[in-house]
């Protein structure tokens, strides 16, 4: 009984970690902030759920379709806003507006069953599925970050002008980074829908986006392990302490303020957990 409970908390944490991993590509490694990534989770959740619920599409295929749809939707907001080179706070707000608009739309479409939400989605997601997806995601994301495109993202985070002078295509790289982050958020959404077997537009609000951002910032910009640890802690700690949902949000809010005021680079700012155990992150990570 208690094992089941622990397993379910860990599974939910794992699902959340995949989304946080996605956002950390965009925020931690490309240096752009978003207050609307919950929208991409919603797209992934609804797309995959509608596919398995109404059209009996196989689960794996539905997950892929959900991720792809999230990636495609990210272009809708990404192309105009990134092309316009908005100031960074306006960009975060534009995505916020997009997220809210999308949520209002979900509340009013017939196929999503409106604000009442979709109940009775098959619960295909097992703890093993989540573990597998998380592991694959971590590998893919870290490979991406070591690739030509990852190097371009990091260069943009460090200095957009110098990055362009190093031959980086600013708009394309930022758009790609947004798309990659949206794809992983979409995957997380698909897994979530088929784990909880019920989704509702109100699950994908601004508060949700703020929580994702809080995990990335708290965990540390430019780190993969930091945000993963933070997002796990964000889910697991309140469960272990049996804290009510609203007090969790009180704590997230406070945490966000405290981090901005005292430690904007986050817990693991620009480092990986492995670097704490004496193994210095050196140039070795590039070739071997």
């Amino acid at each position: 009984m208690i094992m089941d409970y622990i397993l379910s908390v860990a599974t939910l944490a794992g699902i959340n970690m995949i989304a946080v991993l996605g956002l950390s590509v965009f925020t931690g490694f490309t240096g752009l902030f978003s207050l609307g990534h919950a929208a991409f989770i919603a797209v992934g959740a609804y797309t995959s759920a509608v596919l398995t619920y109404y059209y009996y599409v196989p689960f794996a295929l539905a997950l892929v379709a959900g991720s792809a749809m999230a990636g495609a939707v990210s272009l809708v907001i990404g192309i105009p806003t990134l092309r316009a080179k908005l100031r960074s706070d306006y960009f975060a707000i534009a995505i916020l507006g997009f997220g809210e608009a999308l949520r209002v739309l979900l509340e009013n479409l017939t196929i999503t069953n409106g604000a009442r939400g979709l109940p009775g989605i098959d619960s295909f997601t097992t703890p093993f599925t989540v573990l597998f997806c998380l592991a694959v995601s971590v590998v893919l994301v870290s490979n991406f970050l070591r690739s030509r495109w990852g190097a371009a993202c990091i260069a943009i985070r460090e200095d957009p002008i110098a990055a362009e002078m190093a031959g980086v295509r600013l708009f394309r790289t930022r758009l790609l980074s947004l798309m990659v982050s949206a794809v992983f958020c979409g995957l997380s959404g698909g897994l979530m829908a088929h784990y909880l077997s019920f989704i509702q537009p109100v699950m994908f609000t601004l508060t949700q986006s703020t929580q994702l951002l809080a995990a990335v910032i708290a965990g540390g910009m430019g780190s993969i392990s930091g945000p993963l640890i933070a997002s796990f802690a964000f889910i697991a700690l309140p469960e272990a302490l049996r804290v009510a949902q609203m007090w969790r949000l009180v704590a997230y809010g406070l945490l966000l303020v405290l981090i901005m005021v005292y430690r904007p680079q986050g817990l693991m700012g620009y480092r990986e957990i492995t670097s704490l155990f004496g193994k210095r992150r050196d140039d070795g990570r590039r070739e071997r």
Partner: protein
Amino acid sequence: MSAGHTFFSVTGLTKDFGGIRAVDDLCFSVEKGSITGIIGPNGAGKTTVFNLVTGVYRPTSGAIHLMGEPIGGLRPDAIVRKGIARTFQNIRLFNRQSCLENVMTPLLQRERHSFVGSVLRTPGARRRQRDLADRGRSLLASLGLEPFASQQANTLPYGLQRKLEIVRALATGPELLLLDEPAAGMNPEETKRLAELIAEIRERFDVTILLIEHHMDLVMNICEPIVVMNFGALLACGTPDEVRSNPDVIAAYLGKGKKSHDASAQG
């Protein structure tokens, strides 16, 4: 490059910021293989010229040609691919990355990679990255930075940061290298060594160099020709001796040639 084209030229280049004309109908050209210097009093618009040439700003009017091709108004990364690289007056490195990563970034951008191959990290993709890392290391070695390959860029001493910025620019494979006050903040001894280094870079990498500098002895020693700017416009152009004896130049500097050199020692 077909015969008859100048290697690099700006013609009628003009840039307005609001009501202020920062660059005014500027014309000059650069010979292939030369080390051309741009000098002029503070606020003469020298760095603005670099920003126009590299696409950071769009020209209000005028044309920029590299090897016969118009490049004015292109995006910065497109201009880099055409063969122009630069360094910055106030160093702009990828601060939290290692020296090798700083150099790897431009190297990686020059090649076509398969996205799927990179993300799956296929043996082929790994091999290519290894080769690139070796090239990055040898580039670092060419300016004596190899021992610092794994050190974070912003922890390097100032002089080495300047060098690293030059290596990063060279890694884009430029035909024309723009150096914006490479000797800023250096003492006379360091400046002398920098002059040797610049000459050496031209030979070894077969690049043409255009540089902005306040250290008069550096400019007078290694640059030919020298372009003199004042109030955004061309004041004079010629060999060091011609420039030195030009009455307009003397008037512009108001006989402060020596003094402005001293002042520039503080950057």
